[in-house]
């Protein structure tokens, strides 16, 4: 059944390329996917979602999809939500509808395929499938110095994928199977014993590979310019959904199969995630444009999720780290997609995203101001938003094993530094909001149109889940149990 979720966007993309009405087909496919995806996510325990076709006998490769646990369910829910919002937000340039909409659909299909795959081979392959249209969209339809940025993101992410592939292939060879649940089970019950030195090497490959896909410091410098240049739906899908593949992979593959190797790198990981939070946070403050600020901020927020993962690495008894990281992945994915969608809306209304050119937008477009304000507060992690719950859980998870007698360990010290990231977020988000919406109106903003109904639907689609999860986090946490 899950195969429908993956193949529906692909079929729709082919139909669009062959001349079906682009926007209508895409919205219909994304809408159907949303309904099916949410249904699948909330009933993931049902075996009826599994799907498997053998494509190779020896070694056994299966094109198989399935809900391995609640994490897959949450990621699929995130994917279908953002896909529909991105499709609704899409404004294709004249004459490029086919490329534009089919790329959006292919990115969505690749992301859903990667999250739903239970076979290591297709897990990797579907993610790569999603990267290609992202590169093309940035290179063909991006803004600014698009070709240079397209080459940069291609080189960073291809190299990251290649390192990742080496790690995954090594694991699969050791395990003798490509079946991911089987590999995890083998690692748990001792059928797959990997010596510590090998674990350490594999973990290094996986951290560098997955890490560069999630813009872990210092492999992060592709992200901000790419999101600033990408067409809005691509930025929404990539920053919101596709990038989470790296984190998902660490949780799904690295943590359960090479736990000792990950533990060996815990110290390094803690330093790197502080790099994300504090270094990239400072970089974010200095941004002069809203879109590059958002890109940079999304790099920074990866630090919190890595902190949750680091908590889970630090001790096998830690039960909070992974749910916290997953919750935050969902919250960040939805809120960053919302922000990128709104940024595109601001640019269409005013013709600029430069803080210097904007001001007083709250007078001419109050509804826009309210929505951006809500999204910005959410991204800062204010109460009653899903991000708040996620961040609090992450901080709690770091202290779950804390006993006053032993004092603070590296994880907890890192966490104390990480909390300063909240302050940094507040600084740049509030400054951005003030710069764009407050003060006297300027030429660009004086006659800016407010949100129309067509703009409000995708915004609501993303804002409502944020609010719901913020008020009632068990909505997602129940899935993870």
């Amino acid at each position, binding site marked *: 059944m899950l195969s429908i979720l993956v193949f529906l966007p692909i079929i729709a993309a082919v139909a669009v390329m062959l001349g079906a009405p682009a926007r209508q087909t895409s919205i219909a496919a994304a809408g159907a996917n949303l309904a099916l995806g949410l249904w699948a996510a909330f009933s993931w325990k049902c075996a009826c979602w599994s799907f498997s076709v053998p494509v190779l006998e020896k070694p056994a490769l299966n094109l198989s999809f399935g809900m391995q646990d609640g994490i897959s369910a949450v990621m699929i829910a995130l994917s279908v939500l953002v896909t529909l919002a991105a499709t609704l937000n899409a404004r294709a340039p004249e004459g490029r509808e086919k490329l534009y909409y089919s790329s959006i659909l292919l990115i969505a299909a690749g992301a859903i395929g990667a999250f739903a795959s239970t076979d290591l081979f297709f897990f990797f392959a579907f993610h790569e499938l999603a990267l*290609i249209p992202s590169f093309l969209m940035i290179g063909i339809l991006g803004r600014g110095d698009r070709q240079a940025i397209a080459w940069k993101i291609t080189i960073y992410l291809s190299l990251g994928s290649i390192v990742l592939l080496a790690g995954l292939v090594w694991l699969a060879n050791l395990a003798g199977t490509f079946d991911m649940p089987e590999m995890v089970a083998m690692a748990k019950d001792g059928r797959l014993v990997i010596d510590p030195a090998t674990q350490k090497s594999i973990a290094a490959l996986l951290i560098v590979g997955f890490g560069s896909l999630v813009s872990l410091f210092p492999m992060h410098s592709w992200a901000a310019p790419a999101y600033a240049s990408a067409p809005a739906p691509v930025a929404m899908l990539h920053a919101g959904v596709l990038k989470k593949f790296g984190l998902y992979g660490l949780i799904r593959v690295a943590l359960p199969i090479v736990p000792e190797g990950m533990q060996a790198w815990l110290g390094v990981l803690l330093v790197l995630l502080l790099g994300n939070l504090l270094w990239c946070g400072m970089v974010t403050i200095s941004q002069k444009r809203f879109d590059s600020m958002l890109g940079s901020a999304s790099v920074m927020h990866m630090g919190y999720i890595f902190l949750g993962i680091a908590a889970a690495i630090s001790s096998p008894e830690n039960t909070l780290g992974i749910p916290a990281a997953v919750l935050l992945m969902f919250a960040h994915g939805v809120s960053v997609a919302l922000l990128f969608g709104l940024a595109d809306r601001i640019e269409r209304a005013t013709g600029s995203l430069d803080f210097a050119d904007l001001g007083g937008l709250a007078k001419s477009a109050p509804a826009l101001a309210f929505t951006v304000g809500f999204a910005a507060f959410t991204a800062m992690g204010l109460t009653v938003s899903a991000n708040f719950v996620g961040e609090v859980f992450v901080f709690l998870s770091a202290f779950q094993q804390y006993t006053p007698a032993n004092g603070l360990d590296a994880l907890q010290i890192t966490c104390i530094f990480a909390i300063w990231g909240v302050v940094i977020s507040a600084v740049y988000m509030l400054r951005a909001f003030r710069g764009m919406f407050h003060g006297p109106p300027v030429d660009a903003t004086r006659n800016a149109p407010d949100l129309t109904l067509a703009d409000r639907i995708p915004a609501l689609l993303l804002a409502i889940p944020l609010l719901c999860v913020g008020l009632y986090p068990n909505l997602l946490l129940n899935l993870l149990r």
Partner: protein
Amino acid sequence: MPAYYLEALTVTLGLALLLAEAFVPSKSKAWVGIAAAIGLGAVLFITTIAIGPEAKPGSAWAKWPLWNFYQFDSLARFYKIFALVTTLLVVLMSIDYRKILARFTEHAGSENGTGEFYALPVFACAGMMWLASAKDLAGAFVALELVTVTFYILVAYMRRNVGSLEAGVKYLILGALSTGFLVYGIAWVYGTTGTMSLSEISNFKFQISNPAPLLFGIALVMVGLAFKIGAVPMQVWIPDVYQGAPTPVTAFLSVGSKAAGFILLVRFLEPFLASDLTRGPVLKLLIILAIATLLFGNLAAIPQTNFKRLLGYSSIAHAGFLLLALACGTPPEENSLGSVQVVSLYLATYLIMTLGVFFVLAQVRIQRDGENISDFNGLGKSNPTLALALTILLAALAGMPLTAGFIGKFFVFSLAVEAGLWAGVGVAFIAAAAGFYYYLKVVRAMWWAEPADRQPVTLPVISKACVAALTLATLVFGIWPQPILALLR
């Protein structure tokens, strides 16, 4: 039917075509090509039902001494099918290419000199088929020469075209040089082991104490075969000859000739990889050749502007990946693929992608009168469907996941990681990344560059059907490779 009839049938087909060609009116020489295609299709069908002596040990023919020189296992069957499919597609490509062929043999419009062009590949095919079954170095050498001599003619076939003639001379001289290496190497191997038979050669370890002369012979044979597979140190001919030869011949060289070289290399190295005395040095030599080939092919491809020449370098690059798989020296196991199976799988996917690209290239050559990457400018606007197909084929050559090209590369990486050849893995990764760059250059030209003229390229029926089938196969085998591997078992 006993398997040895297959080669006899193929040669007979070639001779019959040559005889019939004399009586075909000069305007309709394409019928020779169609007859060749039908004949090859028939042989292809017979290949699937042919049997070796193991199937009927009691019969008289199974006791023939011929079986000392000739074997028919699943690998032989696979490479015979491979040769037949390649030749069939090349002949079909030649039929659609006859306009250019006519222009450079007689004069435009007259097909008088093109008839033999359809018959010659059939002889090369017979040679490749015999190579797949060769069990004896002398027999293998003769079969290889049948292939090479046919190619001497085919490469220089467009006798009124300077490029084709130059390519022919280069191919002849370097081919003769490599043959020299090969024969000299075979002589050393024979001198040290006392036999030409590859099945008996493995007894050598009881006879010699110092492996140096034997290794010298093996190295010489490998250098000679490097010419056929397009690997360092005998790779220099490839770009020039590929560029100058008629496009169907280039396609034939890059797929058929390479596969024939690889099957012989596999058969030749098998006894030496099985023995502890020679295994280490042979694998070392293979990995050195693989790394050098990967680096040369991929890095030299980056600045190319002529698409046909680019495909030449790409052919070297793929030879590097194939050598890397061989250098792992992994025997097949219950649950995993061995080096030989990976090489065969890789070659099969390579056949599909490369021939698909050459079909398109041949038509662009005819209709836009050029083979540069810039001649593909704006194809995305004038022929979106064709551009989409070519994009898929090129992406597959680059190794994009969910296409056939990825399957081959994936298993090569998998083998290399398992064998712990980290230097090879590293170079192969750089090579794969470079591959993305230079294949996507063509994709960029098709979709991003403005066309010089908006005249759409129209594919003739045969080419259109073949491109569609090959593109579809690229996607299907990318997700479902089992049918190819089923042929190997």
